[in-house]
């Protein structure tokens, strides 16, 4: 019993996504799949879920060979995949979304509206989210959408459930619920393949872990037997220390020369405002639970929430849109490459020089030099950008901005979905920029990342946001994972959290 995957390969043109991946998972086992970006874990998940086809290899599920030709086919065999790309339809209600794969009917044909609400209600009750019933998905917070996505999977009574990265956007209290649900599924004999980058969750939830690297399965180990560092070095291939404290120790800044003073930063979804002083050469990390106004803070500074007034080196000025922000030598790097960063039909040159040549009107003599200076792996400058791996694409976007020599770099979760090597490269670039006297504000959903990057420069702070306010400013040695976590949830009592959800949902 269980699932046995043997020798699965998949290639896209010349690029090998997976080569001879094999593993077997027992009934009732929760298996983590761990690997850097481009290691093929998402591809493998999609192949098992029937979304993409495999080139060769076999999958046997409960002693029967399966070969799904479509997600529909997989669902019939109760193999369900939830992925980081949400599959929810924003124009439909929560319950319609949850039930869309198998809509309850009456008299065999017509939609049973009560049946839909009941079916969805049952799952949402377990998740403490019954007040979402009747709402359109477009009205939900991102983290709630991820919960609904999970509900949509659970409602299909999976025998094999693949969870691809959906927990990385969840509140911690939600993760606890997910934990409970998964343990329950496990006791019913469901196999769960769990893909996540958050080590803490993996240790809490999973029984065993399969490591993937360059499209191959490296090995499978009981979860508790391997330390975090051991797992990381298996993923990377060479032995390396995880990036905790990759730089200097935190020094509390003594003097402060204020570079930019912003009296009023609007956080629209909470109708609040915050003020901020930014110093030269400073890296400010912005932490907090997902959706507490961190992104909105940096976006507002970039002029994306209407006109914003600030004093730059004592001079008053107003930034009304990205164009004027660029004029003041601001830069903005978003973690959502596809939407905000990459021009996917254009070549590397067009992508990397877009700001410098078209907006700042400076001629770039050699785009090649530019690309080389940011450690980007590529063939030639006329390559279409989507031929590169995700991490390299993001490096191109970062290169686009760093080449403009920005005074203030705003980064909204810039390393989302990027492997550790590329991530470290980017951190170093950011630190270099700060050392040259520019300021960097970086939002991250990964607290470790903030601890690490703020330790790389002399002057740094972490501001923690909660409900649209800065709840705490951490400096020096106070910047630790525990402190950030504590400040992210000033009211950790469950009933309070419920109340808050009611207010803001």
């Amino acid at each position, binding site marked *: 019993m269980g699932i046995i995957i043997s020798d699965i390969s998949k290639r*896209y043109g010349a690029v090998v996504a997976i080569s001879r991946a094999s593993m077997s998972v027992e009934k009732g086992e929760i298996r983590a799949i761990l690997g850097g970006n481009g290691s093929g874990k998402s591809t493998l998940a999609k192949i098992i879920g029937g*979304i*993409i*086809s495999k080139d060769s290899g076999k999958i046997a599920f409960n002693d029967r060979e399966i070969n799904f*030709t*479509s997600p529909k086919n997989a669902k019939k065999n109760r193999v369900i995949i939830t992925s980081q790309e949400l599959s929810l339809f924003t124009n439909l209600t929560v319950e319609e979304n949850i039930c869309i794969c198998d809509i309850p009917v009456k008299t065999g044909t017509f939609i049973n509206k009560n049946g839909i609400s009941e079916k969805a209600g049952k799952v949402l009750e377990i998740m403490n989210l019954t007040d979402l019933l009747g709402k359109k998905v477009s009205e939900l917070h991102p983290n709630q959408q991820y919960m609904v996505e999970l509900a949509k999977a659970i409602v299909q009574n999976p025998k094999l459930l693949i969870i691809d990265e959906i927990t990385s956007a969840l509140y911690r209290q939600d993760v606890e619920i997910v934990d409970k649900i998964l343990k329950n599924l496990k006791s019913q004999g469901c196999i769960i393949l769990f893909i996540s980058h958050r080590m803490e969750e993996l240790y809490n939830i999973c029984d065993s872990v399969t490591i993937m690297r360059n499209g191959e399965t490296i090995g499978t180990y009981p979860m508790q037997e391997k330390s975090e560092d051991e797992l990381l070095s298996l993923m990377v291939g060479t032995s390396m220390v995880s990036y905790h404290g990759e730089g200097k120790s935190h020094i509390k800044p003594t003097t402060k020369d204020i570079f930019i003073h912003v009296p009023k930063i609007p956080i629209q979804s909470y109708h609040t405002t915050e003020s901020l002083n930014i110093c030269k050469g400073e890296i400010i990390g912005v932490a907090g639970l997902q959706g507490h106004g961190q992104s909105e803070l940096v976006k507002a500074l*970039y002029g994306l929430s209407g006109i914003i007034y600030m004093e730059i080196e004592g001079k008053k000025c107003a930034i009304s*849109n*990205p*164009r004027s*922000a*660029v*004029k003041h030598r601001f830069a*903005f790097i*978003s973690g959502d490459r596809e*939407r*905000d*960063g*990459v*021009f*996917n*039909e*254009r070549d590397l040159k*067009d992508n990397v020089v*877009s*700001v410098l*040549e*078209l*907006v700042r*009107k400076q001629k770039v003599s050699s785009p090649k030099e530019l690309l080389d200076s940011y450690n980007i792996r590529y063939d030639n400058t006329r390559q279409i950008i989507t031929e590169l791996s995700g991490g390299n694409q993001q490096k191109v976007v970062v290169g*686009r901005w760093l080449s403009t020599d920005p005074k203030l770099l705003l980064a909204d979760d810039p390393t989302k979905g990027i492997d550790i090597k590329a991530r470290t490269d980017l951190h170093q670039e950011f630190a270099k920029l700060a050392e040259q006297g520019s300021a960097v504000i970086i939002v991250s959903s990964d607290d470790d990342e903030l601890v690490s990057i703020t330790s790389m420069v002399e002057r740094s702070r972490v501001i923690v946001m909660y409900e649209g306010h800065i709840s705490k400013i951490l400096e020096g040695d106070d910047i630790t994972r525990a402190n950030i976590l504590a400040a992210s949830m000033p009211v950790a009592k469950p009933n309070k959290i419920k109340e808050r959800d009611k207010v803001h949902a």
Partner: protein
Amino acid sequence: MNNSAKKSNDILKNPYLPAISVSVVLLIVGQILTKGFLSQNNISSIMMTTAILTLASMAQAAVVISGDMGLDMSVGAIMSLTALFGPMIIFKSNAITMIVAVVSVVLMGAFVGLLNGIGVQYLKIVPLVMTLIMSSVVNGFALFITKGQPSVSVSKTLQGVGAVVFGPLRVLTLIVIILLFVLEIFMLRRSKYGRSLFLAGNNRNAADLCGINSRKVILIAYVFSGLISGLAGLMLVGYAGSAQMQMANQYTMLSVAAVVIGGTNLAGGKGSLIGGALGSLVLILITNILQALNMPAGLRSLIQGIILVGILMINSRSPKLRQ
């Protein structure tokens, strides 16, 4: 060996290859099926009609590249408009009136294009709908001004100019070809504007974040489209010798078809003017062959449609949902 293989691979990947090879095949088919297909007369008529459609396709291509399912369905209406009013301006036989005519025709088209651009960029009306309605506004306006007089006679002057421009010298074709390459290279590929247009058309969000004024850039694409359409209308009436109400309406769809055959992506951010020109050539050749075979109009349009469906099946299939 490896190098030459790579070279031949590059040639095979050339986006213009399908259109060029289809044109060659059509020329051969045309010569086999009909007498005098490659005669000087017929060739020059093919070249001229291709030149006019090429202008229309250039107008269309700019808007398609601007992205957001951009389509300019008012190309034909603007052409009809300027075909009606252009000749009215040329009343004296001298170069000045000719220049005045060209300028006013271009302004007329650009104004309609500006309205389109405002509708699409500021009022956020979907391009297809905005330009469609604009085309009926323009047609209605023409009817209103001309009081439904079915045709405006073309002055002797324009006919005279026509004889020079459209005569055996084929100056028109030459002008259009020069214009085509100048705009392709210096506007679309090299200029800051052209490159911004590609970026805004490809990913508007990212372009805005880069500090590109996408709204302005896209607006200008619509103005450019109107402007070129206006010019195309004047050329059309010069070639046809007389103007009629809505004489150019078919050019809207033909221009879309030409652009698609030329390999421009309807999703925006990709494409070229030269591709549209080759697409125009293919379409005109098909029409010309069918006309030479004396087919009834209905059958002709049926065959054109089937060919178009065939081209779409080869050219424009979206990727499979399952990879």
